[in-house]
């Protein structure tokens, strides 16, 4: 399914290029701001200095202990698939089926798709070991590529 997405996004991108005349610029942006790209793509979180609770978005105070001091920490790339579903019906424009999962990355729960795997119950298993991998989401009119993340079997 990843490949299907990719082809579709490239096709959309081609159309966009014909309209705007832009080229792929080589620039990349992460799909979300808690994904860090570069040589070692990984996720980061805001960690409460007082109780170590972690958040992927900003908080005024820690939801667990109300502490107001946070630091940025990296999330391990490897984890264990704690739950999943294989989505067969989704909103308009979302390709199905895909595997949505909950991954335990060294004690931090992460939501993400399980990628580079056949999306059927015979190939996805609770408790399987996975690691973070990135994929191309598409290109905008300036030729900037959006890069997303998922988890692939180890």
């Amino acid at each position, binding site marked *: 399914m990843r490949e299907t997405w990719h082809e579709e996004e490239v096709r959309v991108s081609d159309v966009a290029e014909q309209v705007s005349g832009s080229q792929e610029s080589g620039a990349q942006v992460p799909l*979300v701001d*808690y994904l860090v790209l570069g040589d070692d793509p990984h996720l980061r979180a805001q960690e409460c200095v007082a109780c170590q*609770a972690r958040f992927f978005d900003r908080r005024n105070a820690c939801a667990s202990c109300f502490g107001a001091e946070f630091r940025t920490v990296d999330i391990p790339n490897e984890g264990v698939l704690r739950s999943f579903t294989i*989505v067969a019906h*989704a909103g308009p424009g979302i390709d199905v089926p895909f595997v949505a999962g909950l991954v335990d990355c060294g004690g*931090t729960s992460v939501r993400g798709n399980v990628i580079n795997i056949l999306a059927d119950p015979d190939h996805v298993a609770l408790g399987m070991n996975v690691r973070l991998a990135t994929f191309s989401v598409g290109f905008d009119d300036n030729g*900037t590529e959006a890069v997303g993340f998922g988890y692939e079997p180890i």
Partner: protein
Amino acid sequence: MSASDDIWILGIHMTKFGKHPDSDIVDLGAEAIMGALADGGVTMGDMGIMAAGNLMGGGGIGQQLQKQVGQTGIPVYNVSNACATGATALRTAIMAVKAGECDMGLAVGVEKLAGAGLLGGGGKSRSSANVYEPTGRFGAVTGTDGRIGTATMPGVFAQVGMEYGHKYGGATFELFAQISEKNHGHSTLNPKAAYTKAMSTEQIMNDVMIAYPNTRPMCSANCDGAAAAVVVNGETLRTLSQEQQRRAVKVSASVLTSDPWQESCQVLPDVNTLTRNAATQAYEQAGVGPDDLDLVELHDCFATAELVHYDNLGLCEEGGAVDFFKSGAAHRDGRMPVNVSGGLQSKGHPISATGIANIWEVCQHLRDEGGDRQIEGANVGLAHVIGLGSACGIHILEKSAVAV
């Protein structure tokens, strides 16, 4: 007026759930209110407060309904709490009566949801962005649903059930389908259910897959409906007729909780902890335990959700939900019948009505008015709803002690 510790349901009504193309939310809500008032033998003139819930309409449903059934100038509280909206409306009316602000209160929940389709999978269209700009709380440059997991309700609740399976084992596709088979079987005895067709486990497993392991019949049915209830304090009830006292149902516990912080709640809603907390509080308030319950209506928005709530409500020992179901306990002829109404999978789930409709179901049995699906000798029942976000409402109800 005086504060009173004992609260009773004096009158209660639910419309038939299903498609009501010729009725709007005001028609449906008014039908539920008129039914509840008539059931309790009272009028709008007796009500001291009104709490009204509706999510998909334009707002101000309480005032619209007053114009339809009686404007007396009483305070109206329009409430919104996801799938716990109906229970929240009821709880609001109960709090006002319990506080002594009035003797009687009215709660109503109504929704038009037929044909609403898949809920929860919204967000930015993928093709709308021409230039990537980070937006929102996660700085997303384009739509994330389907790329970073799923926000669709069938998918979220599928993961809730699968996570339970990961923790304790035994939660197979077939088991979830069997739970759905039970509820669809129960629905054949409920004339107010949106769907009343029995389905085999095989039929359910082979139906359209929505989000594995939830197939279409394992998902709550979007439909139209309304439910309303009149609550009264004990002191006032004792001034009413013998018949009103006999049919009144005691609210032994009324609890609403939200979710306390849990490590993974930011990525997968935790429907467990707040339900466990609510159940603990409710049993303590009512002075009963799970073994005292004669029937339970729990929030089976998906078959995968019903399994975890056996455990969350203490109907089985921790980790024992699969064995509990396999023992046959949750069937209507079992020791702890669950969702004899057919549950949300077949009765239907007009969101704001659900949290009062499940109480209506329990009341039918406690009043010996359950018809073909009556649970004989029912004395105590529990009604549970959960709205994502989250909010959990639990009410424990007891049969009146007044003799016929």
